[in-house]
């Protein structure tokens, strides 16, 4: 396992991933891109899906786009694709359930299996695995809203603040795009943050807030084992990487590679690869971290179906690595298709 330096092409390292090889294998494939779904991130997913579709087609792969709805299983039965790219964000795409259904249909897909997806999707479970494997992640507590009504919200929140300190990060245990997430710097703001979070999920993750540089590391396996792409540094214009900052071009500055000391960048890549492996992931993932003032990385969460929109981090990292998005996807669908046999 090794980090891929910026501006150096990965494809030259791997015969299976050279553009020519990818082209000849993948162009004979029929690929289905799944996007949409019923999650809060439907809109983001539709954007990801269209981008993936364009990239695959530009790489010469025959691909079509479809929602995950009641027409999906009949379509899979009538015209089974060689591989599926899951561009669904939120539960359907990430909690493993759809992957389980695809397994039932004997349709291979890009990315990790159902079991690993379920583990990574539930942030407290994933954090526990990371910690067991010695991977740093901020202290946390995860509580369903029922517990607050049973035990009294004031007492529970007081205890959380005493134990974890301020500031705190409150976010849904499941889901992404910053929806329902808030930084709490003042204990008086905690109840409102909890209510905002519980609008999105029945269980909240309350985490010690780590100040530092927001970094995302995409991990790709194009046949030679998982490799870390250049880390992407996130600098939201108003300091908060919320929904508007994520999906409005111009609201965030991304640095790829991140402006990190080479030794720190190396440590960040190692931690990302360790997280990818500890969670049993496959093909691709995105590891979100904070690098604190002392250069220490802290893993916040790991995404098994990372965003693929024009402002998403994985495509930026692929570009920074000197790779072609379409060729990378072509290689991944080729690997997935090969798993069927």
């Amino acid at each position, binding site marked *: 396992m090794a980090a891929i330096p910026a501006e150096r092409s990965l494809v030259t390292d791997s015969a299976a991933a050279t553009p020519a090889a990818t082209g000849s294998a993948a162009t004979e494939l029929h690929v289905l891109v799944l996007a949409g779904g019923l999650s809060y*991130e*439907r809109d983001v997913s539709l954007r990801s899906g269209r981008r993936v579709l364009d990239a695959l087609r530009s790489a010469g792969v025959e691909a079509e786009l479809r929602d995950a709805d009641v027409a999906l299983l009949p379509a899979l039965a009538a015209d089974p694709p060689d591989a599926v790219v899951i561009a669904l964000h939120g539960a359907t795409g990430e909690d493993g359930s759809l992957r389980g259904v695809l397994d039932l249909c004997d349709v291979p897909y890009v990315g990790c299996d159902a079991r690993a997806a379920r583990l990574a999707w539930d942030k407290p479970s994933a954090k526990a695995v990371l910690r067991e494997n010695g991977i740093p992640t901020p202290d946390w507590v995860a509580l369903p*809203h029922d517990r607050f009504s049973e035990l009294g*919200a004031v007492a529970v929140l007081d205890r959380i603040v005493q134990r974890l300190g301020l500031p705190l990060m409150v976010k849904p245990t499941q889901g992404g795009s910053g929806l329902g997430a808030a930084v709490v710097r003042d204990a008086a703001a905690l109840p*409102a943050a909890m209510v905002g979070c*519980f609008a999105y999920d029945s269980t909240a993750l309350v985490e010690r807030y780590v100040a530092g540089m927001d970094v995302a590391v995409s991990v790709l396996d194009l046949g030679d084992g998982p490799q870390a792409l250049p880390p992407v540094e996130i600098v939201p214009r108003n300091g908060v990487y919320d*929904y508007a900052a994520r999906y409005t071009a*111009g609201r965030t500055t991304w640095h790829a590679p991140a402006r990190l000391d080479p030794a720190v960048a190396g440590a960040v890549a190692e931690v990302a690869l360790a997280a990818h492996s500890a969670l049993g992931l496959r093909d691709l993932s995105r590891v979100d971290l904070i690098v604190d003032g002392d250069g220490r990385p802290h893993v916040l969460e790991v995404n098994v179906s990372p965003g693929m929109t024009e402002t998403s981090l994985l495509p930026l990292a692929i570009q920074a690595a000197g790779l072609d998005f379409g060729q990378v996807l072509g290689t991944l669908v080729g690997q997935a298709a090969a798993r069927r046999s």
Partner: protein
Amino acid sequence: MTGTTLDDYTDRYARRVRGMTASEIRALFAVASRPEVVSLAGGAPYIAALPLDAVGEMLGKLGSEHGVTTLQYGIGQGTLELRERICEVMALSGIDASCGASPDDVVVTVGGQQALDLVARLFLDPGDVVLAEGPTYVGALGVFQAAQAQVVHVPMDDDGLIPEALEVAIADLARTGRRVKFLYTIPTYQNPAGVTLSEERRERVLDICERAGLLVVEDDPYGQLGFEGEAPRPLRARRRDGVFYLSTFSKTFAPGLRVGWILAPHAVRDKLVIASEAQILCPSGFAQAAVTTYLSTMPWREQLKIYREVYRERRDALLGALHDLMPEGTTWTRPTGGLFVWASLPDGLDAKAMMPRAIAARVAYVPGTGFYADGTGTGNMRLNFSFPTPERIREGVRRLARVMEQDLAMRQVFGTVGPTGSRRGGADAPGPDLA
């Protein structure tokens, strides 16, 4: 080393573009387009009630037999044939030759929305104030915001805009030296509130505006869609001068054709045409021919009755379901026409903050904040009854009631927390494609 913002134009945008950002609430509406979700969030007419075979045949002939003219450029003001038909339509509600309505003073527009934009272009300088009902039509807020005008809301009750509140708003603004250009009002079956300005108040509102030297922009998309007798005559039927009358065929025929109009004081007509030509050159000849032919050859008055009947039944379904299912402390308006009911939630509930929970429960509405320019409306929601069937409406209200009860319980646990309303008018409303 410089990073990328993925938008190299960031520093070059006009000032009015600054508020245009991705919104998580708008994104949630994407889910409402799935059939699993009961959408009470749209504003779409029930187009399936049209005789689509006959309309389709008519549209085909407009291409095959008259394409040489219908597919050609036309004049900026719109065809005379359509403007004559429009005058016949307006005459039904009392705007006729006796009050100076003439085809010569009608300008055909691309839906009512372009009519609004034209008025804004003609009359609003940056910093000018527009008075509007609170809440008001979200698309108007967008137009006024683009014109860099400030919207000051005037409250309503069950009889529409409150004249005393209008006087207070005018006086307050005069004291601060702000320049108020016009009152924008939807007096009949208001969007989103569903209320109608009473007969008695119509004269008073007109008098107040006349005294203050304010123009009145009367938006009347729903006036033909009353289901409990005739609506009071439009404001324009009562005054020749100072009232701009805007309407559309989007709710009475088909929004896909994008045909609306503005009846303007004679002196302004030429400027409207010049401004419209600068925007769009001319309205679609094909769409104008479609509306003209529809009004000339098809039973459109009968069709209006069908729409009214469908909407009355659906309004009854919505009001009945609200009565049976809503938690205590919820109130709502009882529209006698139009497409919308405006609900006020029990204390402490925030319709915008509750949206994700509602989407998870497979029901959608529009949070009240979308209809105010100043971030108020957190405790309100707009419910549409024109598109979903009565059965779906009841199911939607059932889901909504459950969501509200869950949210009330949550707020009991954590205490009342402040609203999360944005300060950007129109940001919390769906796009026009949402049914």
